Structures are given as C-alpha cells and as structure tokens.
C-alpha cells in the first residue's frame, strides 16, 4: 500500500544565482530561493490490486507525483507511507554508463535499482538473451545504438517482477520484433504486480491497463475515476 496524506511539494529553483557561491558571499541582502508549487494537497491511497493511470496536461505534475510515489523526491509537507519495495522506471536510460560493457551495466542497474540480491551468471545470461545482446556482452555501451541500449536497460529493469511498478509513459522499445516481446513482458509484470501506476497522455492505453484514473491539473487531483 502507498498512502499520501495532505502532500505538498514545492520545488526549489536553484537554476539561477542560488547555485553560485560568489552570490552567497557578495550579495549582502540574502536572495530568497524561489519555490514552485508543484503538488498541492494530494490525498491518495493506493491499495493492492489498484492499476492507476495518471493523466493531465504537460506540466500538471504527473511526473513529480510519480517521483514522490517512488520515494525519489521528499515532500515539503504532509506524509507518505510505503509498505512494499517499489520499482520505478521514470527514465529508461538512467544508470547506463557508455564506457562500461553490457555485462557491467547489467550489474550496475541491478544494484542501483535493488532488483535481485544475488545476481548470478545465469541471470545475466537470461537478461542478455532477452535483450538479444548476447554476442555484445563485453562491448562498451558507446558502441551500441540507442535502440540496443534501451533493450538492455528494459531487459534488466523488467527481469524481476516487482510488487509495485511505477512507469512514466509506456515503454515500447526496439524494432518491431522486440517491441512485441517487450509489450508481452510488461503486460506479464503488470498483471502479476500488486500495484501499478502509470502516467501517460494516451487515454486509450490508460483505459486498457488501469482500473482507476487520476486526473491532475496544476498539481491538484481534480478527479478520480474508479471501477473502470
């Protein structure tokens, strides 16, 4: 279960003068850091069996809400409670290192995403097989095409079936053959997971996958459609 009570998130803007030490030293009047109000008063309980689709316009706060649900961003006020380990795939390229081999990247992704405690040779073989990258296992990633990198990352991240899965947009990677494979695997994971949350602009996809839809506008939940 994931529970959010009166959650507010103000995102500090460090992009301008706040990032430079010289401004801190030479500006006698301390400049206040501007905060963007991204999430406002979010109350949400996600229970076992919930398949939630988050919809809203660009900049409405969908990705930020996913980041909060994943534990990636702390909330400014309110509380958030997690019960299970969550796998969030917000950026499929996250964690890949161009200078490392496919094999080393698999180990890195497994460790940082805390997927499997003892990832052995057999697991790595299976991941490489699924990604169809067996013969490139010792090649550095910089020699891979972007499609190959996505296939590798997808294969690692979806190797273990998580109890809670959070996705930012639907993942379909690679060429036609691999896309079919990846969709099948994702469908398998979604059907076996206890909680599934996805943010997307694709209303048809959300209707197909989810039993609950949350509509966000300007950081506020404006509607929850249940029992779809």
């Amino acid at each position, binding site marked *: 279960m994931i529970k959010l009570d009166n959650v507010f998130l103000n995102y500090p803007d460090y992009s301008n003068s706040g990032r430079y030490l010289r401004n801190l030293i030479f500006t006698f009047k301390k400049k206040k850091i501007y905060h963007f109000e991204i999430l406002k008063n979010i109350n949400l309980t996600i229970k076992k069996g919930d398949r939630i689709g988050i919809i809203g316009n660009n900049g409405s706060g969908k990705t930020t809400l996913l980041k909060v649900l994943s534990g990636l961003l702390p909330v400014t006020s309110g509380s958030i409670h997690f019960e299970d380990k969550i796998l969030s795939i917000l950026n499929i390229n996250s*964690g890949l290192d161009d200078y490392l081999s496919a094999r080393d990247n698999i180990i890195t992704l497994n460790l940082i995403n805390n997927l499997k405690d003892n990832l052995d040779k057999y697991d790595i073989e299976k991941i490489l097989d699924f990604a169809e990258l067996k013969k490139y296992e010792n090649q550095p990633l910089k020699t891979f095409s972007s499609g190959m990198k996505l296939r590798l990352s997808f294969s690692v991240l979806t190797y273990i079936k998580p109890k809670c899965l959070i996705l930012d947009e639907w993942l379909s990677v690679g060429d036609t053959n691999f896309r079919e494979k990846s969709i099948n695997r994702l469908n398998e994971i979604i059907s076996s997971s206890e909680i599934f949350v996805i943010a997307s602009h694709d209303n048809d996809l959300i209707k197909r996958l989810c039993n609950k839809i949350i509509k966000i506008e300007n950081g506020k939940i404006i509607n929850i459609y249940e029992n779809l």
Partner: protein
Amino acid sequence: MFKKIINSIKISIWLAIVEIKARYLRSIIGPFWSAIILFVMVIVIGPIYSLIFNQTSDYILNLAVGLFAWQFILNNLTDASFSFQKIENLYQNKNIGLFVPSLKTLISNLILSGHQLVSMFIIFFIWSNDSLIKIIILMPLIFFLSVFVYPIIFIVSLISLRYRDIQSAMNSALFMIFFLSPIIWSVEMIPESKRFFVNYNPITHIINIFRELVLNLRIDFLSILIILFISAVLYIFSFLFYKKVKHKFIFWF
C-alpha cells in the same frame, strides 16, 4: 536501515571498481599508472630537492611517504568536488542516498593507493632495509587516513553539488596546502621558534604519523590525538550537515 547501509556500501564498491575500469579503459598498465606517477615523482624530485635542501638519502624516503599520504588526500578531495555530478544519472529512477558518491570516491582512491604500494615497496627496497615491514605498516595507516578524510569528502561532495564554484576553489586550495605542508620539506627544516605555524596544519600531523611509524617505527601519540580530535569534530559536523541537507540535496542536481 541496516539493509540500506549495506546496499549503499555494495553500490559504492561496485561503482568504484567500474569507475577505475572505465578510467583506464584500453590502458595496458591500468591503475598501476598511479603507482608509476608516484615512483617517477619520487625519483625525479627526490635527488634534486635533497641537493637543494642539503639532505641525506633519508630525504627520499621521507618524500615518498609524504607524497603517498598527500596523493591519497589530494585525489580524494579533487574527486569529491565532482563526485555527485559523475553519477548524476543514477538518481533519475531511484534515490540511492547521499553517502554513495563520497563512499565511492573513497573506495576508488583506496584501490589506487593499493596499487601505489607497489612503487612504495620498490622505493623502500632501494633506499632502506626492511621494505616489507614498512609496506605492512602503510596498509592500516591508509585506513586510518580514510577515517579522517571521509567526512571531508562527504561535506565537499555535497557543497560542490550545491555550489559549483567549489571545484575550482578546491584545486587552488589544494595547490596552496601542498606547499604549506611538510610534504617535500620536513618540519625539522624550519627554525623551532617558527614551527607553531606549521603545527596548526592538520596535514603536518598526518605526515608526522606516517613518517614516524613507517620510517622510525615510532608512534606519534600527540599527532594521532590531534587527528582523532579533528576527525571527531568533522564527523559531528558531517552528521549535522547530513540532517540539514538529507531532504534537500536531491533538488540540487
């Protein structure tokens, strides 16, 4: 909590290993380059400066031990100033915590220091008698130094993430500290009445601990106490800093 700490250590060790792998990609000698650099520095600077300072052959051993300890501090602090930026993309799906970059920095430099022991062994073998004992003593000393350096890496890495000026400031500061510390010179070369100024420098005490124990098999208790005291203060400061920034740092990327 315990599982989280173990996981952070596991991630840090792995990232340190792969960073060194990536850094020396397509290099035949690999991390032994750091050992060669140290060795070359000692055999180039050593004879020249021993002439300038009118020193005996002991100077080369003092220089080697001083440079070995200094290189560890220098590499850690230089790497610390961009340790978060180096692994920024790991924080896009998951918050792997704020200890991983600093731990990774420390571990990768421990690995490099391990390689430098080879050149230290050769130097001890050429210029002294009991090279094996000296190397055995150096190993725990580098871990002792890690205890002192870690909170500094932690603080520097986080401040550098927030303020990008630190990277340049750090390089200049370390350059000055190098000349102000008894690395290529020794405290004994300074008149006793003027030594108070050197004694305020913590690096002086670190170098003293290393030189006394490795070269003279003597424990410099005063320097050890001073370093332990400074370390304790740094750990308290790091803890307070951690409490202050643990929810903020993720917005600094």
